[in-house]
């Protein structure tokens, strides 16, 4: 019954995670964002909104606002650091594994949704933007 993938709690909540939770980078909103999306994890109530500025297919600025657990907020914060200056193509390639690598640990299924909420919001913002754009 013990879970082989179970990670010690000290390892999960390392200093840099607590730091990103308590001092989220790129926190806030942008005026007139080029892309924007908000989503929640309805089962636990975690919420994240992300605003993006884009220029020539490159993310020039990003801010996020949210509430939720250390895992969801820290991984969103880490994600915003990672994408600034990146092209849409590069962002498209960011996957589940990258987010888990950011967080640096194996987490259980129940917390996976928390860790991935930021990425889901980011991808939705860009997908929506892409839909809006006359192509």
């Amino acid at each position, binding site marked *: 019954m013990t879970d082989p993938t179970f990670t010690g709690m000290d390892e999960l909540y390392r200093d840099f995670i607590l730091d990103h939770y308590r001092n989220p980078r790129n926190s806030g909103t942008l005026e007139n964002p080029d892309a924007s999306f908000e989503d929640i994890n309805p089962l636990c109530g975690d919420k994240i909104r992300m605003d993006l500025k884009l220029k020539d297919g490159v993310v020039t600025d990003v801010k996020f606002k949210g509430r939720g657990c250390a895992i969801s907020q820290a991984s969103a914060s880490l994600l915003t650091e990672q994408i600034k200056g990146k092209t849409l193509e590069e962002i498209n390639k960011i996957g589940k594994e990258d987010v888990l690598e950011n967080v640096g640990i194996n987490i259980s299924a*129940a*917390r996976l949704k928390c860790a991935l909420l930021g990425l889901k919001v980011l991808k939705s913002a860009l997908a929506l933007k892409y839909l809006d754009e006359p192509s």
Partner: protein
Amino acid sequence: MSAILQAHGLSDADVERIRQDFPILNERPHGHKLVFLDSAASSQKPIQVIDAMDDYYRRYHANIHRGVYHISELATEAYEEARASVARFIGTPCAAECIFVRNATEGLNLVAYSWGRTNIKAGDAILVTEMEHHSNLVPWQVLAQQTGATLRFVKVTEDGRLDLRDLDALLDGAKLFAFTAVSNTLGTINPVKELAARARAAGAISVVDACQAVPRMPVDVVDWGADFIAFSAHKMLGPTGIGILWGRKELLDAMPPFLTGGGMIGIVEMTHSTYADVPARFEAGTPAIAEAVGLAAAVRYLEAVGMDRIHQYEMYLAEYALKRLAEVPAVTVYGPSLEHRTGVISMTVGDIHAHDLASILDSEGVCVRAGHHCNQPLMEKLGVPATARASFYLYNTKAEVDALISAIEKAKRIFKIA
């Protein structure tokens, strides 16, 4: 020899092994071996299904979805794995298309309330057949009454099949066509694929009552091409308290919720709420978690035996039973000839009422259903108030068919019928 075995689907040794898995077969009602011939009403359960639920309650029961702790995660995974098992079993690549309900009846009502109330308008036609179980008839009667739609009926022929001659006319203007894949009274196997295709061509959605099909033959919803299908776990070796509504994702996505409350919401504010995506949107409240675990075990059991073989074996028993019954004077069997039917056999014996027949059969340990089988309009049509129905499943044997025949002969003796 092997050609015969193959034709049988299951060898005697296979069936003997299977029977070991069903503890109830050791019961001795009234001092007789239990001869259970009522699987069409509800099947018996193998120890693998009973144990899976037992194990769930002993080791990892907890409410699902919102639990962060270990046993709750295990329960959540088991519940979603059950959904994935069912999806695989009926051939859909999309597990979210499988909604857990209490039973097929609730699944059909869900369609009538959520899809029906949204899409059916006064003047629309709803097409059903004369051989529907009440659960695939009364919800459409109520829907028609409440919306001002009209009900139309596909007739049943003398030999117990659907009369499809005027199907195009009946489908003209119909928005929904509800029909059973297999009749629970006559055993008739209907041409689901053809009916679904013709419904679609006419602009109607198709709702298939798959209660008697999913337990007894391979079912592939993609091949069928229907829009909704409903069935119950308890008829396919699974527990009571859980059934499945499968629907095409595009339809489900566009449907409003039916039951509302915990677990199916998005954001709840004081006076209004948003709702979760499919399938959660249609699963309000704490679901039947142990039952989903039991159903998954039932699916594994059926898959391990093989639905093709189960179907073949049932046909083999049906053929033998029909042959033996034909030899007994005063027995009338209803329904079509073997090539159009499965191992669900309705009969009457002389002027013995079905209840009396079933009581006498019971006194010999033989369990059959007696009554209208939730098919009152069909009974009117057959001109009998009730029939006795024997139905076969993978754990039945030729010897049990023989026991049925002897018990019928006893009934005839008691009622002094030649």
